[in-house]
């Protein structure tokens, strides 16, 4: 037989042994997708057989994305053109009543900005994701997300009938739709963060949006410390003063990453984070 279907034994493993974490990894699914990619039938994304890169795709502007980011993998988000905004929200996929808690995240780390070394805490004292790498230095956790009324007020009304898929989407409706696909609703959407955007606060508490915070090629990497349902939306930041609804794409890539060691920068940022990692490890015992 000269069939072109490769034999399984010739497929290079996607994960180098030994397994890098305790969480189950859907190797079978990845292998099937890798085989499909070799046959040229994978059209929605790219599967890499090289290094630790498992998957990448482009998320266009004004769009919503979700994925269950497995413990032992990391999601890198790269600003393709500069001035992207990525609203983000996180839940424990195994028990979504446990979700990102913004006040706990800010209080534990004594910060009102997010950058490398920070972690995203759940309401249960555990770490959903860590910011392992970041070339921006300031991501906005306080200004929240756009909604339909805000987008219409700033950019005018669009309908699907008139604008087809160029209609102006908003982050709140995008998140609510995406949560709906996992059986959740408005009660499950709590405070969110905005990657790549910056809002400063003066001594009197006044908030000011800072333009041009992110350059082309800027990136942030989120390492999953739990199996985390990650929701992203690329609508403009609600305080962005650009009169145009700018469509800013980002690149998403998922990588296999090592288990954090004792000297991990996120774990050692502050004693609070170290305790968060202990509680997260306890969850997986």
């Amino acid at each position: 037989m000269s069939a072109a279907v490769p034999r399984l034994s010739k497929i290079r493993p996607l994960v180098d042994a030994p397994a890098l974490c305790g969480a189950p990894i859907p190797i079978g699914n990845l292998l099937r997708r890798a085989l499909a990619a070799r046959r040229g039938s994978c059209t929605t994304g790219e599967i890499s057989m090289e290094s630790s890169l498992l998957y990448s795709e482009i998320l266009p502007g004004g769009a919503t994305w979700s994925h269950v980011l497995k413990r032992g993998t990391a999601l890198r988000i790269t600003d393709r053109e500069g001035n992207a905004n990525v609203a983000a929200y996180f839940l424990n996929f195994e028990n979504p009543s446990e979700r990102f808690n913004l006040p706990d995240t800010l209080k534990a780390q004594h910060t009102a900005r997010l950058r490398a070394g920070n972690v995203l805490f759940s309401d249960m004292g555990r770490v959903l994701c860590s910011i392992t790498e970041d070339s921006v230095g300031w991501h906005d956790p306080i200004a929240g997300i756009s909604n339909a009324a805000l987008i219409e007020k700033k950019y005018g009304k669009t309908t699907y009938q008139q604008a087809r898929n160029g209609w102006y989407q908003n982050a709140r409706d995008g998140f609510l739709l995406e949560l709906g696909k996992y059986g959740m609703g408005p009660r499950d959407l709590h405070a969110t963060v905005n990657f790549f955007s910056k809002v400063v606060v003066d001594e009197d508490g006044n908030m000011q949006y800072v333009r041009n915070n992110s350059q082309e090629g800027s990136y942030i990497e989120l390492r999953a410390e739990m199996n985390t349902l990650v929701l992203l939306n690329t609508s403009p930041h609600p305080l962005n003063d650009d009169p145009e609804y700018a469509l800013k794409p980002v690149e998403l890539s998922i990588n296999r990453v090592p288990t954090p060691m004792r000297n991990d920068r996120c774990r050692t940022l502050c004693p609070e984070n170290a305790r968060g990692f202990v509680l997260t490890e306890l969850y997986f015992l």
Partner: protein
Amino acid sequence: MQTTILTPSSLKPEAALHSYIVEAGDSFVLEIAKGQTFRIVDLEGNQAVDTIFYNARDYSDRYSAQDTIREQSNIYLTTGSRLLSTNGNALLTVTADTCGRHDTLGGACAAESNMVRYDLTKRYMHACRNSFLKGLQLWDRGMDKRDITSNINFFMNVPVTPDGQLTFEDGVSDAGKYVELCADMDVLMVISNCPQLNNPCNGYNPTPVQILIWDKNVH
């Protein structure tokens, strides 16, 4: 220098419809009708009053700290602040304030966050999110932990610095200071009078607060 403007109220306590005392560590759940005004009095000073508001007709529509602070372009609440819901409704407006600023970002303490912030042994200390959960369970309208969302910390001082630091400072409140809000729609108020002993938010001495309610058209 920070600027605070204090706005006393003309409402007389003797004209109030109801008066309640909420002890530290207790929860307190009450419906407030559109047009009614209520006052929270920090009886002994430096007492954080963690409070969540819901649209009384649709509990999935609730106070949103992020929408509220973004739309008023300021992270603190004081007289004139309009509290917005997740659906963009005006829930309440702050009509008087003798404290000057109230926190929107610090959230509520919890057994789990106390473990992270202070020590793993703090799990067994009383905390606001336990009070919230108990209050919602006793209210018995199907609400649970998913409904414990953004809260206001009345009388609490959590400054953010221009370089993005967040700190817990001694309260700016004092004995007898109060804040007053008028309901722009029927709302459900859920209070946890904070039992936190690990930081200065209650001056290391949690104390009772008073809630006074006046009927509509009292102004």
